[in-house]
């Protein structure tokens, strides 16, 4: 077996990797969309007046947050069929990623809502706005910019955790690399290409998030002045 880097092999497998990259991006996008919605539900559970629901919600969030995504994936993938629910690897993966990162996003939402000054609420009370109107027109427009950097960070985070999906057989980038590597007994090129693809996608994304963060800070500074 040749030891060094082989360009011909790298170029040969490149089309396959490109297709799989599309799957990775798709998985990250769908998982993120689910996580955004799940995060809203956890936020609701946190903000309902009922103390019991608050407590249950917090415990669930704590549990999901302090256990590994990998085992959660296995759990959903292997246990649900025993209860007669057979889902494809894709669906299992998306549900698990959505749940896992939903707990993180609920924290981002919470922080953003708490970042809106209390006096805004009081002013709305004084103006006799309804709660819904206050949220829609006053609080959310101010909370959203605060949440943007955190939300962006978790998009990048989900993207970097998608390789875990390969363990339950989702045909994303890492899965393709492992398959190609196993078939040809050469792991150097496939895994290196995966690394390069991840770098070229996530560094610009991270830079974009950092820029957003700066813009948000600047915009808020203007409001304060």
């Amino acid at each position: 077996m040749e030891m060094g880097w082989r360009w011909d092999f790298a170029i040969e497998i490149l089309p396959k990797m490109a297709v799989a990259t599309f799957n990775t991006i798709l998985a990250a996008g769908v998982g993120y969309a689910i996580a955004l919605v799940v995060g809203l539900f956890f936020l609701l559970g946190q903000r309902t007046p009922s103390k019991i629901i608050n407590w249950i919600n917090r415990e669930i969030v704590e549990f999901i947050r302090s256990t590994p995504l990998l085992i959660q994936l296995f759990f959903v993938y292997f246990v649900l069929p025993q209860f007669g629910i057979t889902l494809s690897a894709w669906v299992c993966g998306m549900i698990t990623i959505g749940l896992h990162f939903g707990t993180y996003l609920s924290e981002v939402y919470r922080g953003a809502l708490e970042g809106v000054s209390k006096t805004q609420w009081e002013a709305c009370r004084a103006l006799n706005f309804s709660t819904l109107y206050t949220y829609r027109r006053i609080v959310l427009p101010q909370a959203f910019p605060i949440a943007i950097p955190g939300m962006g960070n978790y998009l990048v985070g989900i993207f970097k955790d998608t390789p875990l999906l390969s363990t339950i057989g989702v045909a994303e980038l890492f899965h393709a690399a492992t398959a190609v590597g196993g078939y040809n007994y050469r792991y150097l090129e496939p895994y290196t290409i995966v690394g390069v693809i991840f770098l070229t996608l996530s560094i610009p994304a991270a830079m974009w998030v950092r820029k957003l963060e700066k813009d948000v800070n600047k915009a808020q500074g203007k409001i304060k002045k």
Partner: protein
Amino acid sequence: MTYFEFLNEHGVTLLLGTVTTVKVLVCSMILYVVISMIFGLMRLSKNLFIQGIATVYIEFFRGTSLLVQLFWAYYVLPFFGISLEAFTAGVVALGLNFGAYGAEIVRAGILAVPRGQWEAAHALNFTPSKRIKRIIIPQIFPIILPPAANLTVELLKATALVALVTVVDLTFEAKQINSITWLSAQCFGTALLIYYIMARFALVPFLRWLEVLAARKVGKEKI
């Protein structure tokens, strides 16, 4: 098979796996703390070359997926004549990956130390190394420990990945038992519980204790 029978039969195996997980956690924790300190300081260096190395390292390890790094360390490094044991490869990959995140925390912590402290140390004619070692570093701990605690819990969760490069840890054992018995709910459920207990009732209290200790050291009682 009741859950009790399951525990009776496989509990010891899972516990042995847990011991390995703890070993991986402790080793990679030490490695990542050391790396974060070194690269966090390098990142603040005035020397552009040193700063560049640190930036490239941090961006590289934060930009790629941990799983990719792990597989690279285990399956690709042998191509270059470096064969690491699974355990070593796992610890090194975890340490390098989390070290990159930790370095950013250390950098932010150093920048958060009030300017007056730097100036006072300067005025008292401390050498630069003494300034960092005796004045700045002791003060960054109360600042960096809360985010570092979060990162360390993430590290515990990430140790599960070493199972994929054949380290026989808790996740590996759970997977193994699952493939023999197909009692998925029991074995993965138990594994989840063990990780949860480790995080919530051992690691987090330990890190909180460190936070209190660090706050007391600089004379700020934690409320």
